[in-house]
């Protein structure tokens, strides 16, 4: 195993939340399924199995994909929180417990060290998230299949390869997009983690909030605030956009399902991939990461 992989492995030893969090989410999901508390579709719409069975096959399939994608989103949000706190802690924890000089007594460069931590936040955690999303899909598919077979519908429906593979592809695409979207945020958090004398959370959060308030009070505009909220939450605006409605079906349940099937999980992600915003974000991520490495390298640890 290469040195770099050992550095990554060390992070997984230290930061157990990376694998404990998805296990807890899946565990909760399994408990919900076993206790019969999983209602498929919003408001348990899919539980009306008989009515659902009457929907056109295309609509059924799309609804199922939206359900699976939504499940992935839950896992991703949990892992997003994990990545946030991991990044804040990554270059601070060993300074807090004063083991940093031990790590610095090993023949490892600070570039390797910081990059290994960055790789955990930007590659390992997302991969764990995708794996967790896939497992969650299978848990719900199994639970749903059991429910459907009680209602007399073929249990195989939940495992339709189009739906499962569709759900997995959407999860992967979201994941890659989230990585590109949040890369500058992760770099910024790592810089705060490397630099903060103590309490990296406050050091990370206060400067942008202070700028936001200052701009609002002094200039009266909200560019900073807009910029921050866009970078933090703008991604969700791109997801789940609705396609043009084709409301051909009658009845509340029918139209609700149709509407759900019209949700396009990929939404306007295409716009993001074509935008300069993406590349500016990647460039900012690289610059902030370089700053984090520099601070880690040249910070005087003991004074």
């Amino acid at each position: 195993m290469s040195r770099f992989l050992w550095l990554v492995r060390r992070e997984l030893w230290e930061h157990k939340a990376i694998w404990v969090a998805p296990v807890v989410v899946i565990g909760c999901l399994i408990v919900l399924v076993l206790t019969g508390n999983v209602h498929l579709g919003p408001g348990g719409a899919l539980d009306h199995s008989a009515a659902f069975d009457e929907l056109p096959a295309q609509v059924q399939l799309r609804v199922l994909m939206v359900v699976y994608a939504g499940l992935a989103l839950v896992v991703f949000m949990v892992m997003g929180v994990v990545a946030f706190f991991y990044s804040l802690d990554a270059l601070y924890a060993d300074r807090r417990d004063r083991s940093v000089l031990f790590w610095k007594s090993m023949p490892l460069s600070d570039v390797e060290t910081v990059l290994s931590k960055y790789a955990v936040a930007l590659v390992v955690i997302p991969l764990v998230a995708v794996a967790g999303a896939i497992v969650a899909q299978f848990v719900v598919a199994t639970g749903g299949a059991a429910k459907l077979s009680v209602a007399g519908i073929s249990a195989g429906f939940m495992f339709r390869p189009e739906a499962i593979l569709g759900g997995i592809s959407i999860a992967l695409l979201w994941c890659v997009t989230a990585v590109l979207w949040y890369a500058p945020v992760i770099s910024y958090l790592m810089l705060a983690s490397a630099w903060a004398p103590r309490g990296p959370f406050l050091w990370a959060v206060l400067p942008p909030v202070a700028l936001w308030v200052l701009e609002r009070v002094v200039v009266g505009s909200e560019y900073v605030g807009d910029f921050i909220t866009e970078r933090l939450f703008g991604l969700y605006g791109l997801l789940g956009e609705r396609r043009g409605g084709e409301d051909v079906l009658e009845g509340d349940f029918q139209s609700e399902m149709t509407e759900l099937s019209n949700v396009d999980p990929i939404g306007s992600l295409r716009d993001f991939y074509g935008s300069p915003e993406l590349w500016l974000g990647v460039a900012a991520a690289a610059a902030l990461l370089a700053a984090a490495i520099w601070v880690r390298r040249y910070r005087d640890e003991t004074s």
Partner: protein
Amino acid sequence: MTDLIVARGLGKSFGTTRALDGVNFRVESGRIVGLIGPNGAGKTTALKALLGLTRFEGELSVLGLNPYLQRHRLMQDVCFIADVAVLPRWIRVAQLIDFVAATHPRFRSEVCEHFLSRSDVRKSSRVKELSKGMVTQLHLALVMAIDAKLLVLDEPTLGLDILMRKQFYETLLNEYFDEQRTILVTTHQVEEVEHILTDLLFIDRGRIVLDAAMDEVQESYAQVSVRPEHVAAARTHKPIAERQGLGRTHMLFRGVARPELERLGEVGVPSVADLFVAVIQGARA
């Protein structure tokens, strides 16, 4: 013998305080050097400069490298234990050994495990479950399993009981040290290291006030228990230190001929602690 460390005009300021004020010294390979000084003398700053952990003025070469700019290359051949370099508390002993084995090209796990087998440290324990003495044993076992050219110890036995401290230095001297290796140690407990040191470097207020090999020190410095009737005569030889004790006056002389001193009283080798006090007071006067 080659110069392992060469410092010329080494300086470092914190604000208006000169922590290191143009320090010059050399350390040859195969020596055990004691860097000794009062609190705030610049010891730790000097070690940090040597280990590439702080920026410095002047010239400093360790194993031919600039420690500040080439730190991670230097760390292949240099090990250090400092009271400030604690082991991570969350890690298991076995994980720590595996990690060092995988990342340090000169580390030999079997040597480390040999040292650990004589201690109470269990490989399945986490560092936070170990006592302070066990953590030091673990750290020493790790460091001694690295085939390094220079080992830097900064107050390595701080907080250990006297048995542990004795064992620490015995293991270091008997099982680690050889002509290929060099040890640089700082400590407040001078009595414990004086028998293992080959060289002394006294530092005070950012300056080196004594730089000598141990045998030179024993040749040129002498401690004399002067009989009361010879005190006045003894003072004409300008003792560098003088103290009263048990009806005798103890004086420390430098560069006074041996027969001369023997007429004044019993001549002995001064302890490093006595020498230290005398030299520091002399330098400050």
